[in-house]
């Protein structure tokens, strides 16, 4: 049952631009870890590295699942999904010209996920009743909040063990951000998920987090062992509360 994500010494770049520098981070089973950082500090790049969409130039990313260690830098994205990792991408990236239900079905594209489609679809509609109401509507015609729900629902369709959430707050009103974060917390409870969430909204993110990291200019600047740690850290004050260091 052991399940553990370990990133050690990972670096990544886009051409000559360094996006990640020697990042070391781990997520244990059942935890909700938040990756805090403002725009352009490498949060999304890290998420892409985890999904195999960007390959790190150095370092290792391993996923330990049931006694087997998988090197995520070597395997294809679809195989990473098959290992139980699902991403809610930044900006949602829905299939906007497909219906809500089609979007959800695509979340279960992997052969391993298909037998559970009916059950997962029922879960998704139960968790997000608005999606059931709008199942035949085109995803692109829904509001931002509804789209975020759909993006989360789609990720849940593959029965993930590790849910990666990249900036769920982007483009949402404060109330919707709060609702979205609460929902992620609920899903985590219900399905025993392990969550790694990249977010710049500190106050909202720490509501459901167990601990977190602060990423600055592509490097981990601080590792907080608890939410209290993060709340009292001077770096947080500097980055989020405007205090001068």
């Amino acid at each position, binding site marked *: 049952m052991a399940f553990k994500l370990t990133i050690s010494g990972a670096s990544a770049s886009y051409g000559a631009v360094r996006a990640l520098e020697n990042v070391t981070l781990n997520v244990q089973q059942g935890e909700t870890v938040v990756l805090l950082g403002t725009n352009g500090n490498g949060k999304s790049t890290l998420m892409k590295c985890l999904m195999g969409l960007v390959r790190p130039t150095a370092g290792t990313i391993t996923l330990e699942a049931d006694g087997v260690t998988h090197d995520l830098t070597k395997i294809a*994205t679809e195989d990473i999904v098959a290992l139980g990792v699902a991403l809610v991408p930044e900006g949602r990236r829905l*299939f906007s010209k497909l219906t809500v239900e089609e979007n959800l079905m695509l979340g279960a*594209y992997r052969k391993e996920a298909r037998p559970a489609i009916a059950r997962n679809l029922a879960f998704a509609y139960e968790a997000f009743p608005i999606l059931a109401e709008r*199942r035949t509507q085109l995803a692109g015609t829904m509001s931002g909040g509804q789209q975020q729900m759909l993006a989360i629902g789609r990720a849940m369709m593959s029965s993930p063990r590790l849910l990666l959430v990249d900036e769920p707050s982007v483009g949402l009103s404060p109330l919707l951000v709060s609702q979205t974060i609460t929902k992620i917390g609920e899903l985590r409870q219900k399905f025993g998920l392990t969550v790694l969430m990249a977010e710049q909204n500190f106050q909202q993110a720490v509501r459901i987090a167990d601990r977190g990291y602060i990423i600055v200019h592509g490097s981990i600047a601080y590792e907080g062992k608890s939410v209290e740690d993060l709340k009292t850290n001077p770096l947080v004050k500097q980055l989020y509360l405007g205090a001068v260091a």
Partner: protein
Amino acid sequence: MRGNGFWLAAAAFISAAYGLTVFATNDYVFFAGYIILQFMVLATAWNILGGYAGYVNFGTNAFFGLGVYTAVFMAKAFGAPLLLQILVAGLVGAVLGFAVGLLTLRMHGIFFSIATIAMSIIIETFIINWKFVGGASGVQLLRPPPTAPFDSYIRMLFVIAAVMVVLAVAVARYVQNSWIGRGLRAVRDDEIAAECTGVPTLQLKLLACSISGFFLCAMGAPAAMYLQYADPASAFNLNYSVSALAMSLIGGTAHWIGPLLGALLLASTQQLLTVTISSEVNVLVLGLMLVLFVVGAPDGLIGLYRRFFKPKSSDPSGGSSAP
């Protein structure tokens, strides 16, 4: 239920085509009909990649021309029978399709389309310089006697084309309704997101390219014997690319029936105009119709149908059902 209906219609279609060869007296029907059937196959095959996956292939003429010349080569070198020529052309097309599929790794959108045009020019240049198949001046072909039960070669070609329509449509329909089609639609909408949800995008694109290439190229093979002549300029005519694309768009790319209707509408109109007015006018008509549809019915005939007869349940390919 619907599955059976499809196969019944397919059987009826082939029977009707065969019946026509028995009862019709005027051979012109088959000369014109063959062209319409040919474009049905080309549009249907084009749509598997261009419509479902959203990769606009401008190199239909490369596949078609390669099919023509595969047939020429097979006939000249080995005296191969027509069905073998078609099969081999199909396989050659699938291989070329696979290669085109590899292009999609690095190229998207307009860049992919331009690369496919370049490909057709490269292949045409190669054929022009290949003396064995006639080079630039082309090659005259002698038809062997038709195989029983046919007593006329053109009638036989007509039935073969009808069978190919059924095969191409059956495959397109299968692709559309299966997980392959669902994955391709995801690729068309957002390739990165598709990748993230576990869609094996490269595998699907390679598959779509190969299937599409198979039928585009296979349909080129009988064209050699249809014309009894092959030359690079007409075998690699850009008209095939434009027509396959225009027919799919005019019919609608979301459903397999779209390219079929588009080809039927456009190719028949063109045949009619060629006979009644002139063969130049039909190009003009193609352009006009494309403009009309892009402006008035961007989702093609299928889009028009959906707008006026709104389906109650959702279609897997997704209609325009904005609230």
